[in-house]
């Protein structure tokens, strides 16, 4: 089974696609390095949402993703409206893409990810890339890729 872990940082969407690893030293087997999908700033708000959903849908479909897991935020208060708006727009796009493809979607708390990857929940951006088979951090690793890959582990385990 292939799954997609998704993390959203500053309104930017990071997607990690992975499947079950056969090697015991790997947490999951990445299909490719993390990818970043940015909302198109030039479009009006409604088209910005549908365009982002369309592009995410394309990525999920291309990689035959069967489950999507979004890394839950650890910030539950003191949001600026614009930051909250960007995150909600990105989450909506991920949900829309999942619904269009009939792929189950869930939000995964960082504690659950931390437990699965045996790493502190509040420090997921520093998960070692070697746990996923990379000698050095791939592009976007600390920006959001590590957490996205972290989310693939409980998804595959459940």
């Amino acid at each position: 089974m292939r799954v997609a872990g998704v993390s959203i940082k500053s309104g930017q969407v990071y997607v990690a696609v992975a499947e079950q690893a056969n090697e015991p030293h790997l947490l999951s087997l990445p299909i490719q390095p993390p990818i970043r999908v940015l909302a198109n700033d030039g479009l009006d708000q409604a088209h910005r949402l549908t365009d982002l959903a369309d592009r995410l849908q394309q990525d999920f479909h291309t990689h035959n993703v069967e489950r999507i897991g979004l890394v839950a935020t650890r910030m539950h208060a003191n949001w600026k409206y614009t930051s909250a708006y960007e995150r909600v727009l990105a989450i909506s796009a991920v949900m829309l893409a999942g619904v269009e493809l009939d792929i189950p979607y869930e939000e995964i708390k960082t504690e659950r990810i931390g437990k699965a990857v045996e790493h502190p929940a509040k420090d997921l951006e520093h998960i070692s890339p070697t746990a996923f088979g990379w000698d050095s951090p791939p592009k976007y690793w600390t920006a959001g890729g590590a957490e996205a890959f972290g989310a693939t582990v409980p998804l595959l385990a459940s």
Partner: protein
Amino acid sequence: MTGHNALTESSDPDDHTRRERERVLSLDFECLKSIPEGINEVRVWWDKLLDCYRVGKRFDISSLDHGEVLPEPATLQKIRHKHVVSVLAAVNVKGFSAPLRVIELITEYYPRGSITDALLSGETFTATEAVRITQAALRGLAELHEVHGIAHRDVKSGNILLMQDSSVAKIADLGLAGEFGANGTVPALENPTLYSPLELITTKSLTRASDIYPFALILRELLGGALPYEKYSRSDVVSRLSRKMSPVSAEDARLPVWTPRDLRRIITKTGQRAQQNRYQTAREMDQALSAAMIADWRETEPLVWEAPFRHVPGRQVQVSAKKKRNGDYVLSTKVRRNAGWRKNADDIYAPKLESADARRAFDQATVIANAR
């Protein structure tokens, strides 16, 4: 018509009686035709049984080398994507003597037609529309490449159909599509058009980047209007490709002066002669277009262009050019808020309207149009 999932014989005696109001759609420009010889027709007719128009593209596949790499019609029929015109059926057309082998791919009819149809009827597109159409087509192409492992091999404006709904555009005509081999290449066909990459003639081996190359010219057409298609014969196209030149002259490929810098950069990368210097996947180009800073410039009167602010309703930016006695131009940038136009940046002097200095004035104004 019989069969919907496989290549079948058109032996149904009712076949012709079901087709009403049948007509051939054609463009009389040699440089746009993928298959110049033999049978190469697009027909539209009224399907009385299903109460709708259908389109059938007939072509003689015996005229193509490497015909064996064409995907099975059953494969094409399985492709269902928002940005790909679905193949509903495929038939062997009877009545042609060997060695001719004429097949017809049946698809839905989209009345708005292709980008080429729109351009030839005088339709113009804003930069936003141009980008959205290109992205839609790229998403269709990504589906062919990444999900089905198929190269289109005939990407051109005439094969991108414009929609009247939110899907914006669909990539059409999979008649010359071919399956990528394990090394990610597919043999080229002998179908030179204005949109063909150099490798069609040189290595005769196509990759994903070969299907992306035509989007440089497609974007040019969307931004700057129709090309003088009548000027280019098939032999001109072949001759220029053989000399390792783009089929379209630099003069005709020139972008409007207002073309935003990000789009110029994307178009340049897309149209690189060396495959490895282009975008390697449709997704990569799609993402680049999503991040491009653009403004919707329109020439409101001679030498005056205006674009709306993208994030501030009601506000506009203007670039006007005045010709001086010595032949140079002075370009002024103004912004309209509530009261009227106000100068917003220093004037820029340019020897020609096509010069880098003139483009700089528009680049500066495009940044202003994107202010929040």
